């Protein structure tokens, strides 16, 4: 890393501008360009789509390696990322509490990591 103080602070200022422009983009457009009706209704699902798009590739990251393993069933059943995510979903669906699901998912992730050594 080789930046002058000026360059670093220019970067901070420009990144702050990126944050403002990205998060404020549609808010400063004329009102007739802002989404309405069915598109506006469908945009409700944008956070769900975004969070899954960020998280799912990481969850299934070891999947190709597990399938190529000599014992794929065993490799899948002990894949810490995959198993912890499935445990998390099951517990949230059963208890209806996000935090219980997260606790169970984290616990199974850490114990499978320990198991793998």
């Amino acid at each position, binding site marked *: *890393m*080789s*930046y002058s103080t000026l360059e*670093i*602070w220019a*970067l*901070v*200022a*420009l*990144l*702050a501008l*990126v*944050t*403002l422009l*990205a*998060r*404020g*983009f*549609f*808010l400063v*457009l004329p*009102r007739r360009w*802002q*989404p*309405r009706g*069915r*598109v506006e*209704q*469908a*945009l*409700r*699902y*944008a*956070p*769900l*789509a*975004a*969070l*899954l*798009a*960020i*998280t*799912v*590739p*990481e*969850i*299934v990251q070891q999947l190709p390696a597990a399938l190529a393993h000599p014992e794929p069933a065993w490799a899948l059943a002990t894949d810490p*990322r995959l198993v912890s*995510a499935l445990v*998390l979903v099951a517990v*949230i*669906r059963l208890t*209806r509490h*996000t*935090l219980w*699901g*997260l606790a169970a*998912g*984290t616990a199974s*992730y850490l114990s499978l990591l320990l198991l793998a050594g």
Partner: protein
Amino acid sequence: MWLGLNRHPARRAAFAAGARAVWPSLPAMAAWGLVTGVAMMKLGLALGPALGMTFIVYSGTSQLTVLPLMAGSTAVLTMVLAAALASLRFVVYSAVLSRHLSRVPVPLRLGTAFMTIDPAVAMLTQRQREGRLVQRVALLSGANVITALAWCSSSLLGIALAAVLPMGAELAYIGLLALFAITVPMLVDRPAWAAAAASIAVTLLGSDWPHRLGTFAAVLAGVAAALLAASRRPQG
């Protein structure tokens, strides 16, 4: 206070409701704040710029995008462009917010939008679906203040403890699980399942596209799938 919370009981109630509603997403904010704080210091960023990133940039997406690039001494404008591309999902979020904030004065509108990240947008859309949206600026601000407190305090903790924390991929993955956890209660109807399926398909196809463009394409695909699924059944 700036929202006049002490003079308006309804606003105060909405602020409290917003703060309560994002509570389940605080572990994700805390884990990612910690990871980002540690990553900035391990890279060798001085304290001032690290604090500037935390409080002025206020975007884990941008911060985590530029950190590896800074390690390779990338040009400043290239890093800004990369951060802008990685931040495209926030443009979609601004479209979500636009209807709710269109009558709010511009400074308050932009200030609120600047602070509104994933958990608060998710909270707002879930409330909207349940049909009880009152005092939206106060509702968003309640969520935003709690989220910012969790993010900034855990970033500060990461900055302070970077020398002693043996932080690796494990905490980052737990942060990711915490983000994944808040999606599960959002799978409530047909458009939601359609959005989830389309988003996952596109994000896996585009997982090696540069600048997180696969993520952005997945968001657009998710919204398009929800639009299709909802139009098949009017009340969806």
